[in-house]
């Protein structure tokens, strides 16, 4: 059995309301809010980046996992906002959480699904007994050009999971991927902000990959949508995940507990896995969870997860996702520009 032995989330303290961005962009806030189904988004402090966010999330995961940081043999972090183009985020985080020097790492990037890619790699390494424990995470401080509709959603935050073979709180039963060359969203080297294909990011990109990956997984594990207690789909806005869930045959009850985008925005590599962390915060032993990420470029990773009775033992050892959603400070657009260095 291979699975999660500890999970941790971190979302920065600052929020900006959609109204505040709409005012700056000269748009009607209500139209935006209902169109994107978003109320506000998280903003990193001026002294926060993907490394600092990963460190806080990893510390929270360590509080739950009953192991020493020195026992972790690999750390893979997915992000499209690694602080350095060359120099790994993994080494900064490993040092800051007190890991030994006997570990392997490399930084991952696959738009919004680099976090689940990390999860797959660590899952494979632990399952194959290459390492005893591994740490996988997805974090971002997503950037959007002023005036781009992405500005309403591009947010900061992340989640980290420690995987092992004993004392598992959520077993990863299986995982599949669906991947193709689809240029729906990209950022060229040395560019500050991403570019995207507008409506092209919908049907041929987000929907096609999530639906295919999810259906592949359901077929492989021989389950129906109704077999799951919870389902989490990548959340670029509040509308897409609801629509894709409906298309696949999941209902609102299954997806709402993991749908964080209206309150925190799209945390890119952290998006679907922060949803998973929020669900683990409330799940009961025996609950089943389906997670399907989406990364532009494009691909989806789908996971079949089952919660064990160990979850009750460690759940309250760290702050929950809800704690981070509740404890916030609103900032204005000028402060937002300052914090995100536009």
């Amino acid at each position: 059995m291979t699975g999660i032995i500890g999970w941790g989330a971190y979302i920065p303290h600052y929020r900006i309301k959609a109204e505040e961005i709409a005012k700056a962009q000269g748009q009607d806030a209500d139209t935006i809010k209902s169109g994107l189904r978003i109320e506000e988004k998280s903003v990193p402090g001026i002294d926060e980046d993907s490394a600092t966010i990963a460190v806080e999330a990893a510390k929270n995961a360590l509080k739950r996992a009953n192991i020493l940081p020195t026992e972790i043999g690999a750390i893979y972090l997915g992000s499209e906002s690694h602080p350095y183009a060359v120099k790994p985020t993994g080494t900064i985080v490993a040092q800051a959480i007190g890991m030994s020097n006997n570990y392997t790492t490399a930084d991952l990037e696959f738009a919004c699904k680099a976090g689940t890619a990390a999860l797959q790699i660590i899952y494979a390494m632990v399952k194959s007994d290459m390492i005893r424990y591994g740490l996988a995470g997805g974090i971002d401080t997503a950037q959007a050009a002023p005036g781009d509709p992405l500005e309403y959603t591009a947010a900061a935050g992340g989640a980290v999971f420690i995987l092992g073979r004993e004392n598992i709180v959520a077993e990863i039963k299986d995982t599949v991927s669906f991947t193709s060359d689809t240029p729906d969203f990209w950022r060229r080297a040395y560019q500050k902000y991403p570019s995207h294909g507008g409506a092209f990011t919908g049907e041929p990109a987000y929907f096609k990959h999530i639906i295919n990956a999810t259906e592949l997984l359901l077929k492989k594990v021989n389950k129906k949508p109704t077999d799951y207690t919870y389902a989490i789909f990548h959340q670029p806005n509040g509308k897409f995940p609801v629509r894709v869930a409906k298309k696949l045959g999941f209902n609102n009850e299954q997806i709402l507990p993991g749908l964080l985008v209206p309150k925190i925005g799209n945390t890119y590599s952290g998006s679907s896995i922060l949803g998973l962390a929020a669900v683990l915060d409330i799940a009961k032993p025996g609950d089943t969870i389906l997670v399907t990420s989406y990364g532009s470029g494009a691909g989806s990773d789908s996971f079949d997860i089952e919660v064990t009775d160990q979850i009750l033992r460690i759940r309250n050892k760290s702050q929950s996702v809800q704690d981070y959603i509740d404890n916030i400070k609103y900032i204005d657009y000028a402060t937002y520009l300052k914090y995100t260095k536009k």
Partner: protein
Amino acid sequence: MTVSKFWRNIPQYYNLIGKKCPECNSYYFPPRDVCSQCGNHKLEEHKFDGRGEIVTFTIIRTPLMDPEGEVIDIHAQTIPYILAIVKLEEGPKLTAEIVDCEIDEVKIGKEVGAVFRKIVEKGPHGVIQYGYKFKLVR
């Protein structure tokens, strides 16, 4: 701070690694090689967990800035920022920023915990220097 100076202090800046005197139970942060209390030369490593309280504080409104503009000093961009002397539970005191709170929430005696943040960025081309700041315990 140069890269080598920063790198040498990473255990302290990232993990609050200090020293403890096994003879007289004194704690030191940053680490020292000789115990100032009893003169013992054989001090042991001690990791501080970063809990402490505010001894005193100020709001910095004129920061240290790099005169040539080569260093994007985060302090210069965050004014006003809260600077405090924090007394760690084990006894040593240190100087650090208090983040993620309103200025009027900060009071002498309030409990704080360490967080990991960027301290200085050496321009768009240079190294990012991380270290400890503190947050109010809520």
